[in-house]
């Protein structure tokens, strides 16, 4: 089973899932194989679940959760929260918003 971070929420995928196209948000992908669970942090991308029980997940950057540095995450989160409040243009706001989104996702990946 895999659990993928769709924009609509966490989505568990088992063999025989309905064919789906899901847009992914920054979050954790967990792959359960028997009793083993592997966790990866995905930046963003797409997942296609095909009718023949094959799921394709395409992402720009996927890293193992234990490669993430918690102190850098905290620093980034604080930095972008501050930037969001001081942003003036739409573009700046959007960039800061992405920053906050990604870092909170990273944060919850580490704590959760």
């Amino acid at each position, binding site marked *: 089973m895999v659990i993928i971070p769709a924009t609509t929420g966490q989505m568990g995928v088992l063999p025989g899932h309905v064919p*789906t196209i899901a847009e992914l948000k920054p979050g954790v992908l967990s792959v359960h194989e028997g009793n083993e669970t592997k966790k990866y942090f995905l930046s963003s991308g*797409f997942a296609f679940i095909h009718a023949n029980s094959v799921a394709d997940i395409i992402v720009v950057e996927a890293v193992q959760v234990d490669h993430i540095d918690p102190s850098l995450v905290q620093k980034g989160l604080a930095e972008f929260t501050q930037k969001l409040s001081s942003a003036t243009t739409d573009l700046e706001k959007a960039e800061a918003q992405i920053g906050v989104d990604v870092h909170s996702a990273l944060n919850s990946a580490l704590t959760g």
Partner: protein
Amino acid sequence: MAMAALRREGRRFANPLLSPRPITAVRPSLFSEEDGPTGFRNISTQVVRNRMKSVKNIQKITKAMKMVAASKLRAIQVRAENSRGLWQPFTALLGDTPSVDVKKNVIVTISSDKGLCGGINSTSVKTSKALHKLVSGPDKETKYVILGEKAKAILIRDSKQDIEISITELQKNPLNYTQVSVLADDILKNVEFDALRIIFNKFQSVVSFLPTMATVLSPEVVERESESGGQIGDLDAYEIEGGETKGEILQNLAEFQFSCVMFNAVLENACSEQGARMSAMDSSSRNAGEMLDRLTLTYNRTRQASITTELIEIISGASALEG
């Protein structure tokens, strides 16, 4: 080019030397020992020796270039093969739809910046031109987006009115996804299209490359085709998660698809480039080797001929004294 010129010159030098009557044999025997016969002989062998030296140097260069290409190929081949995993899911989902008929076509021709790599650049240009002919027609618009100096140099001759964007200096650093996606983004922002047709050389093995076309449709065309049950009718079977509307997802999907397909195409082409360069340099080294063999033969023959002549002179001189 340089090789061909040298080879022609090589023959020009070699022919008189290979003629049945060697120059040394017809030299006037009246000359004194210092400036006559020996000087003459030395000059003729000197020319061949110089030629041999330069051929040897060229062979060294082509051998080195072959080695460089081989090591670059090894590095890039793994990445090209891995990157195939990026477009395969898209093809599984949307299918490969080269025959969808649309108004605005954009042909993305991928070539290399540097030469000496066989025919891969002319292949992709030829394929692009054939495609251009195929998809253009009344009230249709077809434009070129060119990657690499070499395709630009060829297409500028007869299709420069149709060139929309040209991109070069892509391979200064090792290719990476970020770079290609920024480039893809730039193409998307600057051209209007219904279908993007990417032409590149797909790497099969070191000696075989397939000119390949990958098609990326605009979200509108994807929606139209899937609704009318056209060539991508299967898409309706999929549920769409996330996003407010189907159009939005398709827009994101099309953009992401383009950058992924471009990434693979650029890598495949770079891989083919190195492979082609490797085999081109291999045959150059072999040619240089053959030429060197011929020159060595000439050199030895000339040398032997002059020695024989000298011996004959000495012997006949001695026998004249005896008699």
